[in-house]
């Protein structure tokens, strides 16, 4: 039995195609997913992300507990700022990627993926046991609405007195938005400027409607998970379950920078990750691929070199911004400099080129 967000009725009235995602009925697209993607790149898109998990860690030792539980240095995070980080197991395998928001000296909000937040809440509870800190999974109380795109600030400004100009990328504040108390974060998963608004479930529909009305003349459209996936892929952002899993370390994923060996004290996964870091170049690396042809490399397709398998596609999609199919893949380090890399697309070996990530970077 899959779960619904408070906005399900709104999605249905908009004619959305719903899909099951991590046990939730979520909008896949409302009309054309390409049009939704392009609207976010050129104007703005409105997303329901209420399936994400919100876990609060509070108390005098909340910061120390998170330093021990996660790979990042959260005690160094300033109030009102956010950080991309990860939770790993003892072997250094990634259990989830997270954004941690510091809401106060002794209050943090950990935002986890829908597929993982129950595990994350359990792990945080266990790992915080020795600290004077309390872990509370409040996912069921919160809805999350995101407005993303170059016109997001212009739209949101009409609904709040909050100082949006002063709100930096990866910062958060508490404010009234369209009459509702909201945590307003300048974060996102699209490669564009934008905001994520955490509100109580009861405020989700009025907030959505207010944002829709405010953005109506500015090109704002509702955008589904299909557009969200192509937007984040173009922006080179990993997706848990595709690029990240318990079988990959942050170093495999090219995200070793999130592991903060320089922070005080031990943390879960430290010994294993230190070994991985010392070993140097991992056996495989996450790279960006652009297809020369028009067929799309997709999740799970083999990457080949002279007919031999040298890697695997983790995510792939037609890119609106490049006009070509793009993909991310794990490829053996030894094959990275070779000419003649291809993807086995249902039996036909289609040539691809390795490019630097991200595929798309917004112009400021």
């Amino acid at each position, binding site marked *: 039995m899959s779960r619904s967000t408070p906005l399900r009725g709104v999605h249905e009235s908009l004619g959305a*195609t719903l899909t099951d995602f991590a046990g939730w009925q979520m909008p*896949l697209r409302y009309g*054309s*997913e390409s049009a939704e993607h392009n609207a976010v790149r050129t104007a703005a898109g409105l997303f329901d992300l209420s399936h994400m998990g919100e876990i609060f860690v509070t108390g005098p030792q909340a910061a120390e507990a998170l330093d021990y539980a996660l790979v990042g240095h959260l005690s160094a995070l300033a109030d009102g700022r956010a950080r991309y980080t990860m939770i790993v197991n003892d072997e250094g395998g990634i259990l989830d990627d997270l954004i941690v928001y510091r809401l106060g000296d002794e209050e943090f909000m950990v935002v986890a993926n829908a597929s993982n937040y129950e595990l994350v809440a359990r792990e945080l509870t266990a790992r915080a046991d020795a600290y004077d800190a309390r872990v509370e999974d409040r996912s069921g109380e919160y809805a999350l609405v995101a407005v993303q795109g170059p016109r997001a600030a212009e739209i949101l400004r009409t609904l709040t007195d909050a100082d949006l100009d002063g709100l930096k990328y990866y910062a958060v504040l508490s404010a009234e938005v369209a009459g509702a108390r909201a945590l307003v974060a300048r974060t996102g998963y699209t490669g564009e400027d934008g905001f994520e608004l955490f509100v109580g479930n009861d405020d989700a529909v009025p907030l959505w409607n207010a944002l829709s009305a405010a953005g109506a003349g500015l090109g704002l459209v509702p955008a589904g998970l299909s557009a969200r996936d*192509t937007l984040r892929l173009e922006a080179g952002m990993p997706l848990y379950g595709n690029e990240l899993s318990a079988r990959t370390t942050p170093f495999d994923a090219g995200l070793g920078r999130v592991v903060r060996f320089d922070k005080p004290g031990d943390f879960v996964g430290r010994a294993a990750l230190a070994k991985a870091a010392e070993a140097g170049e991992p056996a495989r690396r996450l790279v960006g691929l652009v297809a020369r042809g*028009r*067929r*799309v490399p997709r999740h799970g397709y083999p990457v080949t070199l002279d007919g031999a398998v040298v890697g695997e596609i983790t995510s792939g999609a*037609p890119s609106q911004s490049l006009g070509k199919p793009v993909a991310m893949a794990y490829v053996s380090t030894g094959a990275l400099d070779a000419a003649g890399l291809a993807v086995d697309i*249902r039996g036909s070996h289609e040539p691809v080129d390795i490019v630097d990530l991200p595929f798309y970077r917004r112009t400021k």
Partner: protein
Amino acid sequence: MSSIPDELSYTKEHEWIGGLDDGLTVTVGVTAYAAEQLGDVVFVQVPEIGATVAAGDAVGEVESTKSVSDIFAPVSGEVVATNPSVVDDPSLINSDPYGDGWLFQVRISEEPDDLLSAAEYAALTSAAS
């Protein structure tokens, strides 16, 4: 509810067949229902002109943002024409599935069976959605 023109025949694989009446050459495409299910189509591979196909054969593919599906030959015969416009601009399948989004034409070699009428196809798709 997507449109299902009365004058066409259909398959369970969500393709339409037009021009069966004269029993010579038929036109094949995917239905509006299928186009909606696929989402934005980004790539189409049609069979080669001159290819001999048998009803039920996978003869091409349609890719959308999220998925890839086979195109099946709904009838047996020889491929006599393909639609270069839809290969250049696969979004024609979304914008005009029964018109400019047609895929290929087959000169049929045997009278097809198992095709659905518009009413039968409407029943199939309403049961599925």
